[in-house]
């Protein structure tokens, strides 16, 4: 009886989360998808390293940190672009995106240098 109650609660929680998420605007959903993609790529690289070994360790770090770095930058982009966020009410979203692109450029300059 307690078990069925917990699963019922879990189901209810899951459904409420899903419906709440469906309400978010599309641009945020795209950013979320990009973040998911970046993290998934990082995980795949870690799994590959666990199998093959860490031979060009610099390349491994470079690859993982590029994924993590863009994920972090995408998260900050999402924060700045989110209309519900009062702190960045006056920030034009184009400015946020321009920041995102420039920071990515700098990140990838370092990444490509370290990649070997």
């Amino acid at each position, binding site marked *: 009886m307690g078990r069925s109650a917990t699963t019922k609660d879990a189901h209810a929680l899951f459904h409420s989360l899903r419906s709440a998420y469906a309400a978010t605007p599309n641009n945020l959903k795209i950013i979320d998808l990009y973040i998911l993609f970046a993290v998934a790529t990082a995980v*795949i690289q870690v799994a590959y390293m666990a199998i093959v070994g860490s031979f*060009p360790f610099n390349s491994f770090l470079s*690859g993982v940190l590029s994924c993590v770095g863009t994920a972090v930058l995408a998260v900050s982009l999402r924060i700045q672009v989110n209309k519900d966020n009062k702190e960045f009410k006056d920030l034009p979203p184009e400015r946020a995106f321009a920041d995102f692109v420039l920071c990515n450029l700098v990140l*990838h300059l370092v990444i490509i240098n370290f990649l070997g």
Partner: protein
Amino acid sequence: MAAPKFAFLLLNLISILPLLVSSFSVDRPTDRRILVLLDDLSLKSSHSLFFSSLKSRGFDLDFKLADDPAIAVKRYGQYMYDGLILLSPSTERFGGSLDVEGVLDFVDSGHDLIVAADANASDLIRNIAAECGVDFDEDPSAVVVDHSSYAVSETEGDHTLIAADDFIQSDVILGNKKIEAPVLFKGIGHSLNPANSMVLKALSASPSSYSTNPSSKLSSQPPSLYGTAISLVSVVQARNAARIMISGSLDMFSNRLFRAGVQKSGSLNKYEKSGNEQFITELSKWIFHERGHLKAVNLRHNKVGESEEPSMYRINDDLEFSVEIFEWSGSSWVPHVSKDVQVQFYMMSPYVLKTLSTNGKGLYHTSFKVPDVYGVFQFKVEYQKLGYTSLSLSKQIPVRPFKHNEYERFITTAFPYYGASFSMGNYVDVSTKYMIELQMAGFFIFSGVYLYNK
């Protein structure tokens, strides 16, 4: 009166010239001039078959009595002979300027020596033999006796004349033809130090032989030399290719034993002629470098695809190595054919050891990859085969590591990481150079236009 003095000087110089021309040289390793020291000039006739076989092969024999005061092997620092035969077992001291030191210097300078000892051999001969690695029995009156391998004869009944057929197994030293008849031997035996790797038993005594004084009663202690530890004839090949033969019997060289028939006791075979002549002749051919003398020339190495020798290799290079080995046939250099010449690529220990393949004409070659270690290496060929002169060649070559631009550009195991960073929006590498140049160009154009535009 300067003219006669000048003529005298010229005559002297001219007389030395033939001596220089006919001397031993690296191109013709066979000896030419041999000094023979005898106890007794009657040996010239009683051993004439031996001497005439040497003369017929082109040697110049110079006979002297062992205590002749005119004996000199060296004059003005140059050796006058290429070989020395000592058939003087009972001589206590040589005449002239020759002594044990002189004989050993002669051998150390690369010349050959035949020494024959006998019963009651003098200390001089024993010392010479000891310096060459051969120890005669300390009892001066002991001879080799063999009660089951003696030569059957009507006259000599004390079994000191033995029939030996335990030869060293080597076609180089004893020739291609098998020696059928046993060799007759009468004399003293010697032993070899087992730690000495350069001295070999050419003729070994049978297991039933022992060294004793035949006229005295056998002592209660066993004889110090017995069995196959006794060597009847030994040969030494020194590292400078000098060859020495030490025999415990002078009679072995005599005409009497050359011509005698032999029947070994216990065997039914009766041979018309003993194996002495064949044995001594073939052995003297080897001693005087008519056989088994090698030379190696043209040690070359180069990168695969090139023809010059580089001054330095890089790790993981492919290289080829070749060397030519010739053998002296008695009159000319012929290619030496062998399957076991090896080359080492050596730095403190051989990193690469390869057997060289031959084309049958004396050229040995192989190719291999330089190991993944950098440093100063040597190509080493160490060839030591029974009966042949030893070859010890080496050539030094440095090996450098990769230069910074010789590493592989992209590491295959890292491709997923390259792919991941590119998929994250990283297109900087290929475009960076051009972007930077474009930027610079754009900046200059912009500033030019801006500054000079009214």
